[in-house]
């Protein structure tokens, strides 16, 4: 069985102008949302306390809100989580109270309603931890980019390394932009997902680059222009690209559907990352390689000239 088989190469490179424009617009939009709306950081980054409680029946959110507000603990957020029985309560850091006291107080207040309520989870994070996490996260992104660029520069050429990283950052910024636009919670697990996308999306670019290099080396491809060679490489790997991403996305979808609230953010980040990963490796990375002026000589070392012996 075969879904995709192209007899002729698709002239991807001739669409370069349009695709670059689309990328630029989405990228700018993402940055715009990141700046204007900002990320909705989870308690792991901001510091504070999050409690998850479960009721036997659907919870009365208004009642929960009045009870929590009655404790005068500052600005709290109360929302359902997954089902209507699960309630998430988010509280800011208080200097005067430890988290242990805080969660106990809230639970006692909730129990006064007479409804049986079970404490499922408490997360408390002090302010200093959050700052460190942001720092570590940024360091990790930096190191990942550097490492990947170095490897690609060694294995291929610097032009490939630069375009792969640009395509990659494009994906990451767009994921972050989506999280900012919809105000989805940005937690550590989501960050792990974003960083995984960084590795995954490069993967995709590498497959195409590999093929480009191979084409340059092929004797039959001598007469083709660089753009044609890239088109051929993308077309040849197209089928694999779609199947691979389809499989990975199947897994991610399973997490989205069955993983519950804990894996929801992670799976969402990956879904966006995978969709844009296909697009960016084909239509962002390759045009940039072309634009940076890659040529056959960059990848294929000229065979050493035989020295004529003078007798």
């Amino acid at each position, binding site marked *: 069985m075969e879904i995709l088989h192209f007899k002729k190469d698709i002239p991807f490179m001739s669409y370069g102008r349009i695709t670059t424009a689309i990328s630029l617009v989405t990228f700018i939009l993402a940055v715009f949302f990141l700046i204007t709306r900002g990320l909705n950081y989870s308690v792991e980054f901001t510091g504070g306390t999050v409690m998850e409680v479960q009721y036997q029946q659907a919870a009365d959110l208004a009642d929960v809100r009045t009870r929590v507000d009655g404790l005068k603990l500052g600005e709290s957020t109360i929302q359902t989580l997954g089902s209507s029985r699960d309630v998430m309560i988010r509280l800011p850091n208080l200097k005067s109270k430890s988290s*242990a006291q805080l969660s106990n107080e809230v639970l006692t207040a909730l129990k006064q309603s007479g409804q049986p309520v079970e404490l499922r989870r408490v997360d408390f994070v002090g302010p200093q931890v959050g700052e460190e996490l942001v720092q570590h996260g940024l360091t990790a992104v930096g190191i990942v980019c550097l490492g990947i660029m170095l*490897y690609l520069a060694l294995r291929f050429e610097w032009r490939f390394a630069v375009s792969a990283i640009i395509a990659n950052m494009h994906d990451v910024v767009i994921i972050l932009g989506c999280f900012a636009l919809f105000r989805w919670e940005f937690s550590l697990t989501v960050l792990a997902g974003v960083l995984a996308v960084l590795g*995954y999306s490069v993967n995709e670019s590498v497959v195409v680059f590999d093929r480009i290099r191979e084409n340059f080396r092929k004797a039959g491809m001598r007469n083709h222009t660089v753009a044609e060679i890239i088109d051929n490489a993308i077309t040849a790997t197209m089928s694999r690209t779609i199947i691979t991403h389809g499989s*990975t996305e199947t897994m991610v979808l399973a997490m989205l559907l069955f993983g519950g609230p*804990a*894996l929801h953010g992670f799976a969402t980040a990956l879904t966006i990352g995978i969709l844009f990963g296909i697009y960016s490796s084909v239509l962002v990375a390759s045009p940039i390689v072309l634009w940076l002026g890659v040529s056959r000589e960059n990848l294929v070392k000229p065979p050493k000239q035989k020295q004529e012996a003078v007798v």
Partner: protein
Amino acid sequence: MNRYPLWKYIIIAVALVIATIYTLPNFYGETPAVQVSSSRESIPVDAALMGRVEGALRAQGIAPDGMLLDNNSLKVRFHDPDTQIKARDAIEHELGESYIIALNLLPASPDWLARLKAYPMFLGLDLRGGVHFMLEVDMKAAVDKTMERYAGDIRRALKKKDVRYGGVKHIGNTIEIQLRDQDTLAAASDVVSRNLTSLTQTRDNTSFKLILSLSPDEMTRIQSDAVKQNITTLHNRVNELGVAEPIIQQSGPNRIVVELPGVQDTAKAKDILGRTDTLEVRMVEDDQAKVSAAMAGNVPAGYDLMDETSANGTDKILVKKDVELTGDNINDAQPGFDENGAPSVNINLDSTGAEIFRQVTAENVGKRMAMILVEKNRSEVVTAPVIRTEIGGGRVQISGSMSPAEARDVALLLRAGSLAAPMNIIEERTIGPSLGKENIDKGFHSTMWGFAAIAVFMLIYYRVFGLISAISLGVNLFMLVALLSMIQATLTLPGIAAIALALGMAIDSNVLINERVREELRNGMPPHSAIQAGYEHAWATILDSNITTLIAGLALLIFGSGPIRGFAVVHCLGIMTSMFSAVLVSRGLVNLWYGRRRRINSLSV
């Protein structure tokens, strides 16, 4: 041509057998158990204890499923949680309080697996339920406290040698001794260099001051000792809680992570661990003039006005700032009764503590001494007994207006040791046991459905090669689980997500290979050469793409913390197992299927 040499098949077979053995324990599940261990080396857990436990259970008509005695703990398995609870009560009744008796879940895998050191995967707190704390030790306070103790030591040493001094003050990270003249300065310098070699001395000959400071090395040592002592204290406190497998470890230079899996009563755990108290013994000032001045709001220099809590309410009490003794010198404390039958606390001091205590009591007969619980910025006098006589030998008995419960409380506080420096909880996670179970189920279901969908698709799309891809994907999952069980890495929910993602990404290698084989066939290559060329060409791409992914994974492992690290460990391992299974195992299967035949007309791909 498509044949593996025998040794390659043997490598694959051996890897599979090992993977099977180490994956097996994960299928057996867990049985409820009661774990008996001892917090002290003087109380052994041995065959005699096993006999007592067995007897106690038989008396209650409870039949255990099995008993296991290993290094200093006794584990007794039961059939169901109800029996487990009943058995715990019976054992507690028999053994009393000198043992730690905890409910636990033990892997139900057979003994021969345990003997091969094959255990199920080690589940993180988000999957088992429990409490996680990160505590930060106040390093400045640790140094301050040591300096206070040094200042006390110097005062005593100077007094013993009859060196007259103006005052010993602790300022920042230095101690200043004010002396009268050149002679006393020299004498004091001599005393200090004999007793406290770790301090650097600076003499000020014009104002007759001796300034002592700590070297940077010494400072680091004090700080690391403080963290170590706090860890020991936390161990003692956790023992009071009765947790089966607590984890208490240092994380970074000044942080301590405490994990208590399976703790049901999280409020109590937080209460006991969150206590950030230290214990200090100081002299009480009963001079009426000073007390009334302090009560009027004018506390004299060198004194603190504190609250003393007793059964009749709170009283004010004036104590000197000088610390005579800290909780560090207390070996043991037990509640008991004095000769009149009144409740008492019996304290056992170490040799330094005993010597100091003898000296202090000798000098202060008839005066009161205060035992002060310092809780971050709040201090409270636990008890302030009168010194009736000089007490030597390090055995101290406090008695008087105490109820038996109070005596128990005081003893517990003293016994649990004291912290070298106060700590702040900077991170806390509590996960209820039911949520943990749900997380496992959800993670398992996502992986299972994702895997099934991919396998069905591969089978339809690539037929025989698809079947081979699906089998090698299964092998990948198998080996990943085996590897995780083998190294006992902590599996968390992000870790399960990483397993699922690893499978989703691992199929990439097989897709690359299968597509390549198809392409070679399309270019008119004969089947055998197409297999050969397909694998060969795909290998370069697989290597490149896996190494870039591995770079990302390693960076996560090094710089990530908490959930990110849990994800990264599995992610990295998954990449490695996928390289093995997607290339070596799948090629082995292809070779088995097609390689036997000399001529093949078509490939099912």
